[in-house]
């Protein structure tokens, strides 16, 4: 019997797990997929919003601004990438200028600090590649960029280090409330029991609540498509560049990523499938053409990857955070669409507070360790630090991914951490191996070799992203025959 079962290991589930791991509780996290951060968390804009575009008084407004303020602390405790780049909302015409005024006032109400409407010339000074025909812009110095899957991995590793159990590839298929007030959770790999359930299931959030016969809310999957550019184009902008919502639509953003790429997107399309993360020609064209309004010289030449992600939009129009109105012991963290990533650190803390309120009082662990160290990122070290790392472990001297300069040492480290990884995509998300301009063309077979050796699995068993996504399907004739002979 667990005290708490968290369903879903996206950034929200991981943040909640980590914040609750401060207390003397028996906690498990159930995740349907083969790794954490594979769905909404894996494919979004990676922006820490300032918080001026949420409706004052909403949960979105509150947790966005609070969450934003927590990122410096999270960065130093969990060793995650985060950069306060600031953001600009561009006004292209008078209608947009009125919108900036509205956003400014809204931001002030939400408690966003440092907002300023700046002139065209000031914008051009900061951002020389911006469309020179803009009128003005809203400058928000507290906005920033982070890496959502790195943040999730960091939260979950820290949670595991503090005693949380993570069960990957455990799809929740049934949920019931027992007579004694506890819950039974049926998964694809067995039953779990718990006193409290926290639903962090993202786009599946309403389906979890449906399993208990509830119809408290419903989730609409909204798909957004992106273009990711080669690092050569990363310096096109210095801050996050937004377009104001207008008659033309919500607008797309242009930003540098924490890894130095340029990211452009998303569009917004409500779809019926909760799994369809395919990109479309029309979506990508729309994103590119909209982005060109902000950056007129943008071409599609430097694109190295396109992707799409789903956002979980709730029919309430706001985040849903707190106890179920119907069932005691069930807590929802649902409808966490944008600015969910920005809000994640504050949502985790809020859940700990709410659970504490319910339980009466939570006892803090004396040995809680708030710190987590990232995998060393060889490329970003100074020459001296690089040499010291190679002296300590020569495998840091062997570059496996040429495009992103990722070493064998980093990949081996990723395979053996407290939150282990056994897929090509998992290694990629943790180390950036395969994330560069050749998209794994050179390094995938070498990463497979390392994984086979380190994890004692065969090459045929290595997958891109879990069951049924094997990279190779068998051995060639010559290899089979050779192996027969050696037997």
């Amino acid at each position: 019997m667990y005290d708490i079962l968290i369903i879903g290991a996206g950034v929200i589930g991981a943040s909640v797990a980590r914040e609750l791991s401060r207390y003397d509780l028996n906690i498990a996290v159930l995740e349907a997929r083969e790794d954490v951060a594979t769905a909404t968390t894996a494919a979004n804009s990676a922006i820490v919003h300032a918080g001026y575009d949420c409706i004052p008084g909403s949960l979105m407004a509150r947790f966005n601004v609070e969450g934003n303020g927590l990122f410096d602390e999270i960065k130093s405790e969990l060793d995650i990438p985060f950069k306060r780049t600031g953001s600009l909302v561009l006004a292209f015409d008078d209608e947009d200028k009125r919108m900036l005024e509205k956003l400014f006032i809204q931001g002030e109400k939400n408690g966003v600090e440092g907002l300023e409407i700046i002139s065209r010339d000031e914008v051009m000074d900061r951002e020389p590649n911006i469309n020179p025909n803009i009128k003005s812009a809203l400058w928000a110095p507290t906005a920033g960029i982070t890496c959502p899957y790195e943040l999730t991995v960091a939260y979950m590793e820290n949670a595991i280090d503090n005693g949380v159990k993570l069960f990957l590839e455990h799809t929740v298929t049934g949920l019931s409330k027992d007579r004694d007030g506890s819950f039974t959770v049926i998964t694809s790999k067995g039953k779990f029991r718990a006193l409290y359930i926290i639903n962090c299931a993202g786009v599946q959030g309403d389906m979890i609540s449906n399993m208990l016969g509830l119809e408290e809310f419903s989730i609409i999957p909204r798909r957004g498509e992106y273009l990711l550019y080669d690092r050569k184009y990363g310096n096109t902008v210095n801050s996050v560049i937004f377009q104001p919502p207008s008659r033309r639509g919500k607008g797309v953003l242009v930003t540098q990523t924490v890894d130095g790429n340029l990211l452009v997107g998303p569009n917004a399309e409500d779809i019926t499938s909760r799994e369809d993360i395919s990109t479309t020609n029309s979506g990508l064209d729309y994103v590119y053409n909209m982005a060109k309004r902000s950056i007129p010289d943008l071409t599609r030449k430097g694109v190295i990857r396109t992707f799409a992600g789903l956002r979980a939009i709730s029919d309430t129009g706001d985040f849903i955070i707190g106890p179920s109105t119907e069932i005691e012991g069930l807590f929802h963290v649902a409808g966490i669409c944008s600015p969910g990533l920005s809000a994640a650190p504050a949502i985790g803390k809020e859940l700990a507070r709410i659970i504490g309120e319910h339980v009466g009082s939570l006892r803090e662990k004396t040995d809680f360790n708030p710190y987590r160290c990232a995998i060393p990122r060889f490329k970003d070290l100074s020459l001296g630090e690089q040499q010291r790392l190679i002296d300590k472990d020569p495998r840091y001297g062997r570059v496996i991914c040429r495009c992103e300069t990722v070493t064998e040492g980093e990949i081996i480290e990723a395979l053996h951490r407290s939150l282990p990884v056994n897929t090509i995509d998992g290694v990629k998300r943790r180390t950036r191996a395969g994330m560069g301009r050749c998209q794994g063309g050179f390094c995938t077979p070498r990463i497979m070799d390392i994984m086979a050796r380190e994890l004692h699995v065969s090459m045929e068993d290595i997958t891109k992203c879990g069951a049924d996504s094997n990279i190779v399907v068998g051995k060639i004739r010559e290899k089979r025959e050779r192996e027969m002979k050696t037997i």
Partner: protein
Amino acid sequence: MRVQVDVAIIGGGPAGLAAAIACHDQGIQDILILERDRHLGGILQQCIHTGFGLHRFGEELTGPEYAHIFIDGVKDRNISYLLDTMVIEIRKDKIIYALNSEKGLIEIEAKAIILAMGCRERTRGAIQIPGDRPAGVYTAGMAQLLVNMEGYLPGKEIVILGSGDIGLIMARRLTWEGANVKMVCEIMPYSSGLARNIRQCLDDYDIPLLFNHTVVKVHGSKRLEGVTIAEVDSNRVPIPGSERYIECDTLLLSVGLLPENELSEGANVLLDEITGGPIVDEYRHTSVDGIFACGNVLHVHDLVDYVSEEAEIAARGVARYLKGDKSDSRISISHGAGIQYTVPHIISSRDEDVELFFRANGIYNDGMIQLTYGKDILYTKRYNHIVPGKMERIRIKKDILRQLDMEGNIRISWRQREDELSDEAHMYSLSTGM
């Protein structure tokens, strides 16, 4: 670790090996090859099919056989090389930073550098095929590595997009391994691959080659389940209604090669937007003093024989450079109608005849290649046929070069036979003995 060398060669593939040998044979003693892979020979090691060396050695060798002639040449001459060594930075003052697990960081001070890093394949992301992102979508070269180096089969039901040579070779290789290669789709109305590969790798195995076709969508959430293909119009835009779903577990991409010049750019080497490689003179000297380039890092070649030849040209350039020979001119070469690019881009000395390599930008029949200098026609050569898939060459005599201004411009263009003006052009070239 810190070392000083006369010539540092970045890359131990066909270009680097031939450059090293030729440098040595030019009398340069202190040469160091830096190779990122675990073996010398580069991509040739995974090209186990024959067809290499026909021009150079008069016989059809496999990739490893061709490589070994040069690897032996390097070893016979005791030329130094470092394997499993990644160059992470080249500075324009010819300081190189590299690293390997044995020596850690290595700082190399070179008098001259030869860039021979080769190229990489264009990916799905680069051509932006929409759809899902499952396992089973690979570049043809990665599939070749999996099959020929690691011994694994990437899939069983295969569609190939692009008719580049590696894709054609892989169509045959995978058929031999029992896979069903369903088709090769080529967006252009012609193939960039060699005619002999189309014959020997597709026609002989009844694998259909669909011109004017491309993949418009990828399907499958885990492993590839199928692709939607469509016919394209003359602007390469898919024709609505022509879509067809093809079931397959593997999509191989053979959609072009890109010279790998990230290190070159870091050293401020100027690149040609069309080739993606450095702008060079006839000795393959780049815009940065003492940095030379050859092989596929300079422009993508159809035959390795030409890579070796180009490496030797660069080595002669390095020898001249180390001797202190200075350039005396800067004749630029521009391309007109029908020409995609030329190498070299400029001619900086007039001591020797210069071979001008060029590629057509489309298929042209029955016409001529003309070199003009202002209004003067320097040279005309008749061609029945030129295609983008075949690199062509023209030799410009030093006597002609010496008649030109030091800063002049030679223009190379294709002319259809009907716009032939007179026999004047031939007269000129005959009189100059070209």
